[in-house]
């Protein structure tokens, strides 16, 4: 409940209290949503990797549930990044899509996770797919830095998003941004715990059958 209220306030705050950036106007506001979602999405995938490692080490179902929940939410968030990115890009650069490093990395990661869910569905019995998914989660995140580095050097003409150093920005921008980040993290944590809870119930139901 708290989270919903906080999120509603967050959106409101973004609309009313943040300054208008001269050349970007309303489109720039997406920054307050797009970037926190991206960070939490990647955090989620990091959690998939850690959960995967823990699952392989001691095979406890809770790590598998954590991994799956984090994968689902991460993919959801990453999808939103891929949607808000173009929404931001169109007014500013005139095109829907640009092969900008961070967006491209996000796209590649999204595709890896499409494979992750296919593996979960088609990999065989769930007792095996848990193991395989854990391995894939580890491989995926280890690949991320390499992907990002290579994509960044790939096409020099595709500069990053307005590459702003957050700490040097006007506090009128930084503070709402941080608030948004915190609120999105809260949302993430809430969604994660909720999803894990549901997965736990599903597991219990499967056991009782």
């Amino acid at each position, binding site marked *: 409940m708290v989270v919903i209220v906080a999120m509603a306030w967050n959106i409101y705050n973004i609309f009313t209290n943040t300054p208008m950036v001269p050349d970007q106007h309303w489109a720039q506001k997406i920054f307050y949503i797009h970037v926190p979602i991206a960070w939490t999405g990647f955090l989620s995938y990091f959690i998939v990797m850690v959960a995967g490692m823990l699952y*392989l080490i001691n095979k406890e179902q809770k790590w598998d549930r954590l991994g799956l929940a984090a994968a689902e939410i991460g993919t959801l968030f990453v999808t939103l990044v891929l949607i808000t990115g173009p929404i931001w890009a169109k007014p500013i650069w005139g095109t829907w899509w640009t092969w900008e490093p961070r967006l491209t990395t996000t796209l590649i990661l999204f595709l*890896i996770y499409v494979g992750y869910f296919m593996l979960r569905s088609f*990999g065989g019995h769930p007792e095996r797919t848990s193991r395989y998914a854990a391995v894939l989660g*580890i491989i995926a995140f280890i690949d991320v830095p390499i992907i990002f580095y*290579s994509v960044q050097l790939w096409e020099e003409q595709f500069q990053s998003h307005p590459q702003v150093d957050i700490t040097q920005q006007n506090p009128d921008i930084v503070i709402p941004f941080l608030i948004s980040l915190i609120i999105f993290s809260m949302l993430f944590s809430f969604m994660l715990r909720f999803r894990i809870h549901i997965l736990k119930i599903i597991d219990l139901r499967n056991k009782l059958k």
Partner: protein
Amino acid sequence: MIWSLVRKDLLLESRTKEITISMLAFGLTMIMIYALAFSASPAMYRSFAPGLFWVIILFASALGLHRMFVLEKEFDAFSLSISAPVDRGIIFLAKWISGTILLIISETVIIPPFVMFMGLSLPNNWLIMIMIIIIGNLGIMAVGSLVSGLAMRAKMSEILLPILLFPLVSPLLIASVKATNGWFQGIPFMNWQFWVLLMITFVVVFALLGYTIFDHITEE
């Protein structure tokens, strides 16, 4: 022990020739399809030849990898290797090496027609290009062997394998194309050597990762 496994893979291939034939036949077909679909001026061919080359190799590798692991599933042959006192990491390394060797063999057949149909004129220092090709192959096969282990027992493994392989291998693809392009355009090595370094990093990371983690995906 690795060599027993590699020997076995190569012996198997010399009997069936399934892997090399599927890779090179597919590669040649792809060259023709691209030539027909993108009939272009020689200058244009020159500009996208490096990229096209690696795309063809990647697709052919996916095919070859799939066959490599299908051969293990016939008659449940894989159970022999995994029930034996052989470290699973060693099995991974053997698949990695065998796969790379078979890919290189296929490439000797794919490359000449590729060069010919694209009307390319190649620089003289082809030793560097050979090195790039070998490193690229090692990279594809490292990730490929790992991912094949995952896809091997899955339904729709022919589709699952490329879907898992291609995104994971994308940095290698980028680096290989950049390096190949640098060589092809005659740009001094210094300017594009970091792409080769990136390729080598990729190979090392995934070879180590595969060796460490393969154990968890060999069992049913």
